[in-house]
């Protein structure tokens, strides 16, 4: 052990130095307070013995400075004193001393105290070492965690996000994945608590989310599965506040489910107006599968509109007066911004300015912004980037029929299932995104127009949009008879294959016989079938309506890539 003795009386210094050397320790000497600090910096001793009354710098001041220099290291400070009154001794301890030694010095006591403090120091070092070890382990685990939780399409050009760096692990999670049809599903979650226990729930969440979205499941199915999974694995009292959104790039709409997070917004970058997204549900992982509610809200989104979501860190940032940053201040950033493209950075800047400098909370932000864009072309291009693997096994020549009755139609989305079937056909894998788009469009036409008689003209206004979905839900609930049938046929050709999809509903059709020529009556067709029908025409080789219009045949010729 190395001990620093700071004592201005020469004979006392001599005695103490000799006593301690005899105990086998190294001794550094200082004759006044100023020198004590200098010697401490130079030799970094393990224990400091400090006279209270010294010239140039009082012992209590020296103690303060040494504490500051030592930082997280534990350096026991023992005051040397011939002060006898209890109040004086108490003052030493308050000034940052750990103990005191009174004159005349007693060898036995000195030995005992040095032993005690060296033991304490050793324990402290062990704890520091273990903590360091834990941090290293967490950093390694974080690397794996990030690969699982934060992969996907978060780096798409229309997404910006920031995950709180407050702790190595915190309970915040940001996910984004692309639907086979090119749509984007995003989720921002905040698990209760902090650290590893909070973060670990993010792993199954991410796995279910990425897995199901890429197979084409709807947001509702994904969230139901996630909720059930979290409910079954998380301990009571741990759950995940989340907002999830499905950005439909073709019909420029967004479907949002919000459970427990602060209100997010949809920001119109042209007129700087915001629409708030209120939380209407309990967080994920609380309710049983049967009790789980899915009542999303729908918004129309123009190109360049941006959805912003955040966890509570930003809103709960406090300033020196203990006021919270709050939602109002946050909204003002949007409405008062001079440049809609820099709002993301402005939010961070405003919160940073607001927070007390140097406090940890200044970094506790999780934020994501996703912009609506003309995505179809982008999504289809992405599809072609999928490198086909050499296929040895799979479907080739086959036909399949799948008919859904009323009860199935009310509770089941057949598109992922049929997409999955097509996925099994050799060589068709690179085209699965396009085919999923076609299937989804044909199915929603059959259901919404054929069976539920909804008018897609309603979707032309913002209010109509919400009304459209409300009506869809209402009529589907009341549906008592009807069916939708998929007839799928695949024939291999020399350089690829021909896939024929026929979707038939039990509705009355729209009397193609009367309007006959599609070209002349484009508008009525589009009002009946929605904007998506034009897209399908561009994606396949043949599109034919069977009179009276309740059945559609699509032919898709493909070649090996």
């Amino acid at each position, binding site marked *: 052990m190395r001990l620093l003795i700071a004592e*201005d*009386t*020469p*004979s*006392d210094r*001599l*005695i103490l130095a*000799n*006593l301690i050397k*005899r105990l086998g320790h190294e001794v550094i000497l200082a004759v006044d307070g100023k020198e004590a600090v200098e010697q401490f910096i130079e030799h970094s001793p393990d224990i400091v013995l400090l006279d209270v*009354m010294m010239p140039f710098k009082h012992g209590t001041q020296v103690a303060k400075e040494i504490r500051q220099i030592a930082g997280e290291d534990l350096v026991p400070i023992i005051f040397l*004193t*011939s002060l*006898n009154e209890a109040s004086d001794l108490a003052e030493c301890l308050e000034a940052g001393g750990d103990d005191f030694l009174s*004159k*005349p*010095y007693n*060898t036995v006591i000195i030995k005992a105290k040095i032993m005690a403090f060296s033991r304490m120091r050793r324990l402290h070092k062990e704890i520091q070492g273990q903590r360091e070890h834990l941090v290293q382990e967490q950093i390694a685990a974080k690397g794996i965690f990030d690969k699982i939780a934060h992969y996907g399409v978060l780096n798409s050009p229309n997404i910006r996000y920031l995950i709180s760096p407050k702790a190595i692990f915190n309970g915040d999670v940001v996910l984004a994945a692309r639907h086979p049809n090119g749509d984007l599903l995003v989720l921002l979650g905040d698990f209760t608590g902090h650290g590893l226990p909070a973060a670990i729930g993010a792993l199954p969440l991410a796995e279910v989310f990425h897995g199901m979205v890429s197979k084409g499941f709807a947001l509702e199915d994904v969230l139901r599965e996630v909720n059930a999974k979290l409910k079954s694995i998380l301990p009571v009292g741990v759950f995940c506040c989340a907002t999830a959104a499905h950005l439909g790039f073709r019909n420029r709409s967004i479907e949002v489910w919000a459970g427990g997070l602060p209100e997010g917004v949809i920001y119109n970058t042209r007129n700087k107006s915001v629409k708030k997204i209120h939380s209407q549900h309990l967080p994920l992982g609380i309710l049983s599968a049967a009790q789980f509610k899915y009542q999303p809200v729908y918004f129309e989104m123009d190109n360049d509109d941006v959805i912003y979501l955040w966890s509570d860190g930003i809103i709960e940032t406090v300033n020196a007066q203990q006021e919270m940053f709050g939602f109002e201040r946050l909204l003002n950033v949007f409405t008062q911004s001079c440049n809609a493209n820099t709002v993301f950075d402005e939010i961070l800047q405003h919160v940073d300015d607001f927070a007390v400098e140097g406090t940890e909370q200044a970094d506790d932000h999780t934020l994501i912004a996703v912009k609506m864009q003309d995505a179809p072309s982008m999504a289809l291009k992405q599809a072609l980037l999928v490198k086909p693997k050499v296929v040895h096994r799979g479907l080739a020549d086959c036909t399949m029929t799948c008919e859904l009755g009323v009860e199935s139609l009310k509770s089941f989305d057949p598109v992922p299932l049929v997409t999955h079937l097509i996925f099994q056909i050799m060589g068709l894998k690179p085209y699965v995104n396009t085919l999923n788009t076609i299937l989804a469009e044909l199915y929603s036409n059959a259901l919404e127009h054929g069976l539920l008689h909804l008018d897609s003209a309603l979707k032309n206004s913002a209010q109509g949009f919400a009304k459209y979905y409300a009506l869809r839900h209402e009529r589907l609930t009341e549906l008592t008879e009807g069916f939708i049938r998929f007839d799928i046929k695949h024939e291999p050709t020399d350089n690829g294959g021909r896939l024929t999809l026929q979707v038939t509903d039990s509705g009355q059709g729209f009397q193609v016989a009367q309007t006959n020529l599609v070209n002349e009556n484009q508008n009525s067709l589009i009002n009946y079938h929605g904007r998506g029908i034009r897209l399908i025409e561009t994606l396949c080789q043949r599109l034919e309506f069977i009179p009276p219009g309740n059945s559609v045949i699509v032919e898709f010729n493909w070649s090996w890539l």
Partner: protein
Amino acid sequence: MTPHIDTEQLAELKEVLEDEFGVLISTYLTDAKFRLQLIQNGINSQDYEAVRLAAHSLKGASANLGAVILAQLCEKLEHDCKVGEYGQLACLGEKIQQEFISVRDLLASPQ
């Protein structure tokens, strides 16, 4: 009657310090003379803070060498300065000078 020096304590010091014991004695005596001068000057010039500090220092050093009476006198002097009772300072100063002479003679003689 309390002896000027606690011989047992001094013997223990001698054992611990071995060859350096002589150095300790001369160091103590030199420092003590210096502090005594400070005490005397302080009393003369009524600088009681200076008196208190010097008395405090001499008290500790003396206690460590077993000069029990000298340490007690210094403590009294320190205490009076602290609480502002200056009536006996001159008298105490005298006593401290005398006691120091006794201590010095004992320390200087071969142990």
